[in-house]
C-alpha cells in the first residue's frame, strides 16, 4: 500500500492530469454524416470493406435511440456539435519515437508515462493514443520476436487485415447498442493485440488514452485476440484536460480468448470528472466485452473507475468454451456530482463455466453509484457457477448507492450466489485513526483502500499503486 505521506502530497494536487497540450491539430469540423465517415476512412487509407462496415453501422445507428435505462442524468447530446476527428499534425508515418513531436512526449511524461523505451518500467510496452490517433507504440521489436502483434488498430488494418476482418465486431456487433454502433461508424484509432498460439506475452501491454482537443469525441476501438494456449496482460489508462464542456468518449473493446488462452484486462480510468459543482467532465459510454470462445479459456476484467462525469460501462464475458472462466473486479468511485452506472454481464453458455464478480462502489459528496449486473445461465450451461459480491461504501449524507442485480437461470444444475453489503465510513473509524496520529485524509484513504483491497490485489503492481493514489485524490474534500 502507499505510505500515507505520499497520499498527502497527492491530495494537494487534485486533478493533475487536467492540463492542455498546445500542439497543432488537424481537426475536422463538427458534424456527422456519411461524408464524415468517408473522410475518416479516407484519412486512414482504409480498404473498402472497412468503409462499408462503417457505413452500415452508421445506417443502423441513425435508426437507434440513445439508451435511457441507466440511472444517470445528463442533458441531450448534440451529435452534430462534436468533431469526430482530431490528430496532432505530424509526418504521416513514424519510423521511431525520435520522430514523435516532442510536445507529445512531454505530455505523456507529465502524465507519468515516459514513452522512451529506456525509461520504461521493464516489461511494459505502451501504445499511446492522443485524441484520435495512436502516436507511439514502444517495445515493438521485442514483442515481434515473440510473435506478438501490438500496434494501433489503424496499422493493424493495413498490416494484418485478415485478423482484423475476422475478429472486428465478432464480440460486439455493430448493432449491439447505440454507442457501439456510433463507435463502429466513426472509430478513429485504438490498439490491436494478437498473441499467437502457446505464447506467453513477455511483458505487460499498456495503452494510454488522452483526450486533448476541445469539442471532440474520442472513439477508440481495441481488439485483443489470444490464440490457443496464450496469455496476455493488458493495461489501459485514461486522462483528459479540465474543460467546462462535457466531452463524449464512446469506446469499444473486444476480447477473444481461444482454447486455454487467458486475457487479463486492467483499467485505471481517470477521465476528467468535472469540477466540484458538476461542471464539465467526460461522458464515458463504453462497451467492453470478452468472448471465451475456447475450452478452459479465461478472461478477467479489473477496473478502477475514479474519473468521468458519467460512467456507463459493463465489461462482460460470454463464456462459450467448456470450463471457461470469467472474472470481474471493480472499484468505482463517485464524488461531487459524478454518476456511475457500472457492472458486468456474465453469460454462461458452455458447460462447467465459472464466473466471479467482485464490485466495490464508493459514493461521496453528491455522487450516485449504481451496480448493475447480469448473470445469465443458458440452458446448455450444465454445472455453471457464479459468485457475486457487491459492496457499497458511503461517505457523507448526500450520496447514493444502488444495486441492481439481474439473474436469469435456465439450467437447474447451476449455482448462483449473490452477496451484498452497504456500509458507511464511521466517525468512530476516523477518530480511531486520528487518535493514532493519521490525518483525516490519510484515514479516509486507508479505510477506502482497505475496502477496495480485494480488487486492488488483482491489479498489476504499478497500476495498484497508481489506483491507490487516485482513490486518495478523488476523495479530497469528501469528509469534514
Amino acid at each position: 500500500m502507499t505510505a500515507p505521506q505520499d497520499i498527502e502530497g497527492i491530495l494537494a494536487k487534485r486533478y493533475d492530469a487536467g492540463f492542455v497540450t498546445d500542439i497543432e491539430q488537424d481537426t475536422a469540423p463538427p458534424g456527422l454524416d456519411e461524408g464524415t465517415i468517408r473522410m475518416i476512412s479516407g484519412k486512414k487509407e482504409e480498404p473498402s470493406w472497412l468503409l462499408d462496415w462503417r457505413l452500415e453501422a452508421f445506417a443502423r445507428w441513425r435508426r437507434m435511440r440513445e439508451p435511457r435505462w441507466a440511472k444517470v442524468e445528463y442533458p441531450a447530446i448534440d451529435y452534430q456539435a462534436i468533431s469526430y476527428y482530431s490528430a496532432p499534425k505530424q509526418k504521416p508515418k513514424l519510423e521511431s519515437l525520435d520522430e514523435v513531436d516532442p510536445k507529445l512526449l512531454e505530455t505523456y511524461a507529465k502524465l507519468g508515462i515516459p514513452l522512451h523505451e529506456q525509461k520504461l518500467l521493464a516489461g511494459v510496452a505502451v501504445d499511446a493514443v492522443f485524441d484520435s490517433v495512436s502516436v507511439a507504440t514502444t517495445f515493438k521489436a521485442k514483442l515481434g520476436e515473440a510473435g506478438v502483434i501490438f500496434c494501433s488498430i489503424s496499422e493493424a488494418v493495413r498490416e494484418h487485415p485478415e485478423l482484423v476482418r475476422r475478429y472486428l465486431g465478432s464480440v460486439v456487433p455493430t448493432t449491439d447498442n447505440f454507442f457501439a454502433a456510433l463507435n463502429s461508424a466513426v472509430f478513429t484509432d485504438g490498439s490491436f493485440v494478437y498473441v499467437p498460439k502457446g505464447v506467453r506475452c513477455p511483458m505487460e501491454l499498456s495503452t494510454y488514452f488522452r483526450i486533448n482537443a476541445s469539442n471532440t469525441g474520442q472513439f477508440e476501438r481495441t481488439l485483443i485476440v489470444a490464440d490457443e494456449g496464450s496469455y496476455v496482460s493488458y493495461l489501459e489508462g485514461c486522462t483528459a484536460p479540465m474543460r467546462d464542456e462535457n466531452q463524449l468518449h464512446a469506446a469499444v473493446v473486444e476480447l477473444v480468448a481461444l482454447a486455454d488462452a487467458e486475457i487479463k484486462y486492467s483499467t485505471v480510468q481517470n477521465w476528467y470528472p468535472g469540477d466540484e459543482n458538476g461542471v464539465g467532465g467526460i461522458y464515458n459510454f463504453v462497451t467492453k466485452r470478452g468472448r471465451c470462445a475456447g475450452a478452459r479459456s479465461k478472461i478477467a476484467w479489473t477496473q478502477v473507475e475514479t474519473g468521468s462525469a458519467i460512467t456507463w460501462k459493463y465489461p462482460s464475458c460470454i463464456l462459450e468454451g467448456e470450463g471457461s472462466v470469467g472474472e470481474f473486479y471493480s472499484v468505482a468511485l463517485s464524488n461531487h456530482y459524478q454518476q456511475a452506472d457500472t457492472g458486468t454481464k456474465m453469460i454462461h453458455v458452455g458447460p462447467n463455466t465459472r464466473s466471479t464478480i467482485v464490485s466495490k462502489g464508493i459514493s461521496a459528496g453528491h455522487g450516485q453509484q449504481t451496480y448493475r449486473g447480469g448473470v445469465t445461465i443458458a440452458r446448455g450451461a450444465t454445472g455453471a457457477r457464479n459468485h457475486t459480491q457487491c459492496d457499497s461504501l458511503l461517505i457523507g449524507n448526500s450520496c447514493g448507492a444502488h444495486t441492481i442485480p439481474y439473474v436469469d437461470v435456465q439450467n437447474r444444475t447451476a449455482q448462483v450466489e449473490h452477496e451484498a453489503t452497504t456500509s458507511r465510513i464511521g466517525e468512530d473509524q476516523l477518530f480511531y485513526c486520528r487518535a493514532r496520529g493519521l490525518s483525516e485524509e490519510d484515514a479516509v484513504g486507508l479505510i477506502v483502500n482497505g475496502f477496495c483491497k480485494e480488487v486492488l490485489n488483482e491489479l498489476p503492481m504499478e497500476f495498484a499503486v497508481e489506483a491507490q493514489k487516485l482513490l486518495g485524490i478523488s476523495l479530497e474534500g469528501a469528509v469534514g
Partner: protein
Amino acid sequence: MLKIENLHVRVGGTEILKGLSLELGAGEVHAIMGPNGSGKSTLSYVLAGRDGYEVTEGRVLYDGVDLLALAPEERAAKGVFLAFQYPVEIPGVSNVYFLKAAVNAVRKARGEKELDAIEFMRFAREKAKLVALDAELLKRAVNSGFSGGEKKRNEVFQMAALEPRLAILDETDSGLDIDALRIVSDGVNALRGPDRAMLVITHYQRLLDYIVPDRVHVLVDGRIVRSGDKTLAGELEARGYAELGG
C-alpha cells in the same frame, strides 16, 4: 505533565463534566474510578480530541501547551495515546500496515526518520513480544473478528509501538477474563517508566490489583469527589460509590 483545570464539558447539550481538576506528573500512574455515567469516558475522549465534546469552561495544559487547541492527530504526535474502551474495526486494512502508517505519521511529525517495511517488521515483532501478542494478529485486519481480549491486547500493543508520553487507558479491563487481564496488565506495567504518565480509567478495583496506581481519584457526577493513595480503591470496593457521592 498534564494539568486539567476546572474542566466543564457538554455533550449534546447536557453537561457531563462539571469542573474537573487533576494534575498528573511524569512517571506517575493515576487511576480514575467512578460509576457508570460519571463522565469517565467523556474525560478520555476530550483529552484525545473527539468531535462532539464541547468544552464550556476550564483548560487542559499538556507540557504547558493548550491541549484542547490541537487536532487529535497533533495530540498523538505529541505523545498522547488513548487506549479505547471499544477498539474500532477497520476491515481490509492489516493491523501491521495500520500501525506502520500510525508510527511513521507520528515519527514524521516529531522530525524522526520513518521506518521502512523491514525495520518496522523487526520493531513490531519486538513490541508484540512485549505484550505477548500473537504475531498472527499482526496480519489480520485491524480489530476485525478479534475477541474482546485480543482487541484490548492490540490496544496495548499499539501503545507499546507508539511510545506515548501520556497514556489514557479507558476501561481497558472491561470484558476481560482474569488471564487476559493479567496479560494486558503485564504489558501496561512493562511500559511504565520515569518519562511516561498514565491515566487508568476503570469501573472496578480489580484492575488496580495488577496496575498499582500512585494516586486514585473518584469521579462522581462530573467532578472528582475524593483523591487518595491506592488504598482508596479498596475502600471504594468495600463501600461503593454511593457513599462517596456527597
